[in-house]
């Protein structure tokens, strides 16, 4: 499928994660792994400039 890549993960790690996916409220193991990656990326990646973020909100009727 376009926009998706396959990643090999340790089987026992995945088994452990699978048991918790439902309990935590995720819809799938993929969603759980993506969320874990996003949390770390948010810490490591450089934040987008505040001015650019604000410019993108222009025209949103509920604001300003």
């Amino acid at each position, binding site marked *: 499928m*376009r926009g998706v890549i396959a990643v090999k993960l340790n089987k026992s790690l995945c088994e452990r994660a699978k048991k918790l996916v439902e309990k*935590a*409220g995720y819809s799938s193991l993929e969603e759980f792994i993506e969320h874990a990656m996003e949390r770390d990326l948010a810490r490591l990646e450089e934040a987008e400039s505040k001015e650019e973020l604000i410019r993108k*909100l222009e025209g949103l*009727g509920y604001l300003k």
Partner: protein
Amino acid sequence: MKRFLPALVCSLAVVALSRHWHPSVDFAYVGPGAGFAFLGSFLTLVIAFCASVVSLLIWPFRVLWLLVRRRGHFGAVRVKRAIFLGLDGLDPNLAERWMEEGKLPNLARLRAEGCYTRLRTTFPALSPVAWSTFATGVNPAKHNIFDFLNRDLRTYAPELSSARVRIEERVWRIGRWRIPMSRASVELRRKSEPFWKILGRNAIPSTILRVPVTFPPDRFEGRMLSAMSTPDLRGTQGSFTWFSTRADHTCVEGGLRLPLTRRGDCYEGCLPGPEKTRIAFTLSRENLLAIAGQRFVLKVGEYTPWVRLRFGRARGIVRFLLTKMAPPLELYVTPIEIDPEHPALPISHPGYYATYLAKLLGTYATLGMAEDTWALNEGAIDEDAFLAQARLIQEERERMYFSALEHMRSGVVACVFDTTDRVQHMFFRHLGQESRYARVIEELYRDMDRVVGRTLAFADADTAVFVLSDHGFCAFRRGVNLNTWLRQNGYLALKDGAEESGEYLSGIDWARTRAYAFGLGGLYLNLEGREAHGIVRQSEAAALKAELIERLTGLCDDETSEIGIQNVYDAEKIYRGPYRDAAPDLVPGYAPGYRAAWSAAVGRVTRTVFETNDKAWSGDHCVDPAVVPGVLFSNRKLKVANPGIEDLAPTVLDLFGIAAPKWMEGQTLCAE
């Protein structure tokens, strides 16, 4: 000359006859172009024929495969088709009143023959939040949409909660050479799984039209056209352009105000597009607009058809509206929307679906919130022009919706019309007043009733119909700036002893701030370990929340002596799920008539807590969710008392005989 004429004729005749009786071979070069053209068209026919034959041959196997995929729920299927008609913001109080008065006959019929109930909405009562819950059947802490805005925990900067568009820099390597390339990457931030993906996995196709928070579109077995949060070509949520011959060019919110300059008999202007591109145009004395090789005669108060424009590689569409003749001459241009025939960003699934719709039904507005509320707020257009624009957009969407219903043999069609929301936002101030616009909202409801009537014509015994709204509506007269209240009460501090802050929390002294408000529906603690400059320890959080709940509940507006905040909800009690970190810690429940002030929505700290709303945007729903439920009508008898918008996803799965996944929270509404 006369002497030579017979001789000349004779010699020509001899040459002609000799060629006739003694034919010779002539050589000429015939290029391959004609042959390629002929064979090319022939090849298309051959491919089409082969594809038809292959399709016929594999048809039994396809049917068999479909039956295998549907085997798990074959016996439990209750319907062949389900239709969701979403009317964003349709208010139960108004709908019930006008049904009683006989003004909404189709909704009244649906109520009498099927059922009607008020529909519990989400915390907060905002469209992106509520429609995400509709799609996934879960509370916001499981789908990650809590507001229009999300805060960046590193910088406290605002970002759109539902989608993220980024430019990715890439390099193509060919041998020794490196070619720098960049492309837009778009990410949908709504999590969990919408019901149409689950249906698709079970070979039940869906057509999802304009349901909010579907940009970029999901990939699934079905078709989808994106809606709310789809940007314009400038990358904003919709910025109009307002040209004028008037000399003073003040700044406007939500758009650009630019000059029209006189040159000879014409006016000249320049329409800015994305990334510093521009397209020049002229407007003659006879109101003839010439732009990019196209010509249109403008009439005051009448929109042009969609005008296709090319800004570098990106293609957009706009409408022009001459709002005023000289002096001053004023020309309004809609936001530059993504051209659905050549989308610059993914706005449909499959990718060609947007183009297919445009070719089949004519081009259409693609912007997430296409009705230009800011243009009316800022006076770039008047009420009539706004209503005309909303009507044009509504007609386009009706064409798509009814075309989808006509082509639906089985599966689901879900379509959300948001004209109801936009028009109520802008015309609520006229409701019940002596005004020529006093009946605009009533007429809007009657128009939606007509759409319901047409929908019911498609509903046979095997079709379930649901007409629903995500929230109701009420007046917005007074704004509350919670950041100002927090500063006045010692929870928030500004740098250098300032009395006011800049936009989006700039100027806040985070080292002395314990709580802050952000977006339309959230109050956050400046929590240590979560926020970049958090100072509130986890062990102190519960006590601080309890203190804020106690002090803010019943907050009184001294100017009107009315209660501005009637409830404050603790996130611990209303949210459960893996995305709780992104959720507000407290959700204020504003009383009807109140909402987050305009200054608060953009994160400014001002001098006064309460302010009067004098904008055309005079109706809202960002209040206590308990006072703005939505509506739910169905041609089926439903069983659950006090249904919520999260119940629709498990209900549609149940109708098609599919068990709701365990992470879904809603309950099926179908009677046994």
